[in-house]
């Protein structure tokens, strides 16, 4: 059976106003992503990785071109509609974990589902499942300040994954972690990618991440310079 694209990027140009002129951060990008991909955007600093992730994540809009995510044209979404798209279908992970400090691990993860008005019993099961995925069942009642960096990022992953989004967008998720923790969370994400068929898109410099990817898109000065399927070294 054919696997249709869930993200289509067509002639995308993104310009930012700088001073009197404009700066072109993304220049004529054409890409498609399919369900279940584990893809990395790589490239030097300033090449446009985060900008592209932002637009796919409906946090920013294209200047020109059409970006379609799960049949929604990003340029045409209202604030409410883009919030809904993120709420239901997109998960974000950042370099810093951005957990809510006064809430427990359990409550941090639960919050994503509160936004969806999921009934309590169902919610509880989903939260416990998500914490099991990331191996933090024993830290349910801890608060973020009590967690190690690796644990913090794993809570962030559980929080993003608990609603079982179609697409996960991760911007430098390993940048603050040591090697051991980096591998741990990458393995966790890889497993979720395989079990739940979640599409993962990374923006990264990290060599460790490369080893897990099955597609690497290289950006340079806002252009795609290479787009290759790879056989993951770590699997």
């Amino acid at each position, binding site marked *: 059976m054919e696997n249709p694209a869930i993200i289509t990027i067509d002639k995308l140009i993104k310009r930012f106003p700088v001073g009197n002129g404009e700066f072109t951060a993304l220049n004529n990008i054409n890409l498609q992503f399919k369900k279940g991909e584990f893809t990395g955007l790589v490239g030097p600093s300033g090449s446009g990785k*985060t900008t592209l*992730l*932002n637009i796919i*994540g*409906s*946090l*920013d*809009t294209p200047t020109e071109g059409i970006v379609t995510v799960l049949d929604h044209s990003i340029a045409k979404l209202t*604030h*409410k509609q*883009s*919030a*809904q*798209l*993120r*709420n*239901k279908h*997109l998960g*974000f992970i*950042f*370099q*810093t974990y*951005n957990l*809510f400090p*006064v*809430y427990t691990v359990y*409550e941090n993860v*639960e*919050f*994503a589902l*509160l*936004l969806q008005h999921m009934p309590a019993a169902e919610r509880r099961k989903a939260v416990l499942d998500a914490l099991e995925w990331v191996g933090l069942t024993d830290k349910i009642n801890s608060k973020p300040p009590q967690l190690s960096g690796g644990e913090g990022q794993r809570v962030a992953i559980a*929080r993003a994954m608990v609603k079982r989004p179609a697409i996960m967008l991760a*911007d*430098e998720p390993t940048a603050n972690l040591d090697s051991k923790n980096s591998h741990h969370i990458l393995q966790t994400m890889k497993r979720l990618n395989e079990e739940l068929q979640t599409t993962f898109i990374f923006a990264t410099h990290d060599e460790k991440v490369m080893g897990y990817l099955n597609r690497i898109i290289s950006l340079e000065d806002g252009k795609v310079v290479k787009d290759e399927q790879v056989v993951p070294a770590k699997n």
Partner: protein
Amino acid sequence: MIQFLFKGIIRDKNRSVLPILVISLGVFLTVLGSAWFKGVFSDMINTNANFTAGHVRVMTRAYAENVDQTPNDLALVEVDQLINDLDNQFPDFEWVKRTHFGGLLDVPNEEGETRAQGMAIGQGIDFFSPGTHEPERMNIPSSIVEGKLPGQPGEALISDDFAKRFKVNIGDPITLFGSTMYGGMAFTNFTVCGTVRFGMRALDRGAILIDISDAQIALDMADAAGEVLGFQKSGNYDEERALQVKDAFNAQYAADSDEFAPVMQRLNDQAFLGYYLDLAKYMSSIVIFIFVLAMSIVLWNTGLLGGLRRYNEFGMRLAMGEEKRHIYGSLITESIIIGTIGSVVGTIFGLAAGYYLQQHGIDMGSAMQGGGMMLPTVFKARIGPEAFYIGFIPGLISMVLGNALAGIAIYRRQTAVLTKELSV
């Protein structure tokens, strides 16, 4: 979601403690302040109504012009008929005669010669009619220091200070020198049946209280009285009704140009009192307004600080797909919860302190020397039904307003820069 917000408020001391303190304090002051003003104003109003002005008061026009001098030569005549008419026409009022007079009290020695003399202000009121409310109205029974109320003609109460100063005892004779209604000299002997202290400077220095019938005899005022006062039988001053009665009464004499024709005034017409009555009405609004303003500014600032502190939280929530409107709404909900907690705490303390001041009062005797007005020296707070909710008005408004202003920043937030903001 509410539960979630509630947990956040309880656990995040930064979010709750300072605002709750600010609100509690403001609410406390509002509740106590309004109970205090209510007490002070109603004491002031009641004192003036009961001692001088009634709820309404009838005098001759000429008397009314010089009311401060209580000119008995301009007194009302044929008062029994007048009271009869008033009773029929306005049965919701109790009508009573009063005569104020000035004079000299002379204390004789055993030989009947003058031992001491002092100025006194006198009042003739209704002590003797069965069922009279006048002694209670003027708080005389509980102001008695020694002795008892006048029970028969010829008995008089004098102020305790006067009695002490001139060593007058119960049962001693005393002579009142005054002027009759027609300008002649009058002297009448009374027996001191008791002494009183009202806690009002004007009265305590030197006063004599006798029955109105004795005053009529002593001052040659047969069937006359300086003033006729009307008190609403409900006990409360209803200024609307008082105005109706006043207008209806005065309309009957509109065509009469006689300066001895009667004229009615209501309590508001008393110098100063109208102003205080108005002030009493607006006082709680003024208190609330001031506290809303002051607290809103403080809470706006704590809200702004809170917004800075929670910058990442709000950013993450936007990234997670919460709408700005919803985040803003949750901020307002939080502020309602915090405002309610602070208001409850402040109201409890305000009521406790107000209750204490309602029981004990504060002696302002030395601070307040009423110019012309009758002023009680001990002021007490009064807790009315509004004391239970009035604090919630500034408590909630200021917290919600402060946070509503501070929360506008959420709307300014651009989602396009969230990834950058959330990566540092």
